[in-house]
């Protein structure tokens, strides 16, 4: 395990694990317009950190439970009279604020709040790595197993019903996967940037994909690339690592949009010349 003794290698592996799990999940978040849902779940996890520290249980466990509770609350409350964005705006920021207040009560533990808000990927230990890869593998396995049913439910719930698929169950599976990824991601990019790791690679991939599967694969590639380049840039430029990774991913998105725009423009012109 000498290779894993290098903190940069551990950081890279942690980031890659997250990127691989976040890519297909992020695609569903984008397709189902759940971006703020991801945000709300992520913001709730700071409350999970506080609770975990207060009761002296593992941070991963605490985050998993609160993220799951938040995601379930949002699922249940949606469609009960409030517009989804209002509901999420209330719940996401309430959870974040409550978490920050709760953390302030924990006099006896010295915690570096910044490391939970923005991640602390360079401090990933062997144990963290094991947790991250277990979580990522479980998420991927779950998504691969349910892929077709999830996709059908995403397309149209009635279409799913007619084929004997229960879309509510598939929604629950996505919620569960989201909670796991949030818990995994908190060490890597932190509470505030988890949603970016989900959405930015998926949005980048959209420009080049013609099937859902290809979009997920390209998103995974973009995520992995962002982690590796982001780590390198942050090491050289001495910038905060989590935000740097997200910045690189955002750069990929911009380049992808430009290429796509150029391509569409040419495409349009050649069409005009044809006629």
């Amino acid at each position, binding site marked *: 395990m000498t290779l894993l003794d290098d903190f940069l290698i551990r950081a890279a592996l942690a980031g890659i694990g997250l990127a691989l799990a976040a890519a297909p999940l992020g695609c569903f978040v984008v397709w189902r317009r759940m971006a703020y849902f991801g945000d709300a779940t992520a913001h709730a996890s700071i409350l999970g950190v506080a609770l975990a520290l207060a009761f002296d249980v593992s941070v991963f466990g605490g985050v998993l439970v609160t993220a799951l509770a938040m995601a379930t609350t949002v699922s249940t409350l949606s469609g009960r009279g409030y517009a989804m964005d209002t509901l999420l705006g209330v719940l996401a920021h309430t959870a974040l604020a409550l978490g920050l207040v709760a953390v302030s009560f924990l006099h006896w533990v010295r915690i570096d709040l910044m490391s939970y808000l923005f991640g602390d990927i360079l401090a990933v230990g062997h144990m963290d790595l094991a947790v991250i890869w277990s979580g990522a593998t479980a998420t991927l396995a779950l998504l691969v197993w349910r892929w077709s*049913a999830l996709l059908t439910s995403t*397309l*149209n719930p009635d*279409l799913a*019903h*007619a*084929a004997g698929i229960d879309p509510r169950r598939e929604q629950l599976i996505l919620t569960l996967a989201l909670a796991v990824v949030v818990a995994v991601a908190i060490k890597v990019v932190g509470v505030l940037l988890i949603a970016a790791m989900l959405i930015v690679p998926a949005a980048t991939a*959209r420009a080049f*994909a013609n099937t859902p599967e290809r979009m997920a694969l390209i998103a995974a590639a973009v995520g992995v690339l962002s982690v590796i380049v982001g780590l390198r840039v942050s090491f050289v430029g001495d910038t905060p690592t989590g935000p740097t990774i997200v910045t690189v991913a955002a750069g990929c998105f911009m380049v992808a949009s430009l290429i796509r725009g150029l391509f569409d423009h040419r495409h349009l012109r050649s069409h005009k010349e044809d006629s």
Partner: protein
Amino acid sequence: MTLVSLTGVSLKYGGRTVLSNVDFAIKQGEIVTVVGPNGSGKSSLLRNVIGAVKPSVGTVTRMAGLRIGYVPQKLHIDPTLPLTVRRFLSLPVRVSDSVAHAALEQAGVAALADRQMTNLSGGQFQRVLLARALLCKPHLLILDEATQGLDQPGSAAFYRQIEQVRQEMGCAVLMVSHELHVVMAASDRVICLNGHICCEGTPELVASAPEYRALFGTGTQGALALYRHEHTHSHDHLDEGPAA
């Protein structure tokens, strides 16, 4: 053999009664059309049949192992979801290329396999939806206002295709429509719905029933008049043809 039966089904949405005391059954090979004004519970009836909603009162019984091919009223595909026609056919059950090709060929859209679903015209889109619904070799094909957005020749062609499908595959067809003139000709049985079943029977019987006329009007407003209008319309076309 009865495929699906609803017994004494009532459905409430937030205090509003959408369906009350509906008894309905569809047998193997039948074509049944449900007609009714907007908000009469037509789509709710279909959603009961496919199991998307559970009735507040009453029971829904489906034949064991029933395969349903469903063509929804509207299928919105989010622009962020890349989906080729070929990939769409493999949802939720993967089909081989040769099966997919044959299905598209039969639907008359063989050249579209690599197109994005969002780039299809209304008519092409409906044909692809139908092709996908038939891939599971359904016992029951369900069409929810499937020709909405198609022009009259387009929907007439679509219904001819449905009849052909029924002959070839022997599946039952349950459809909801307001295009009475086209639908009625092809149906074995018509159900006139307005929260409850007003009347049902053969197309001719329903068209002359007072309950039906009360809902859809009589004389020139009625379905039979519309049907005749169709005829003159097509003759007009013939007459205009050479002159133009």
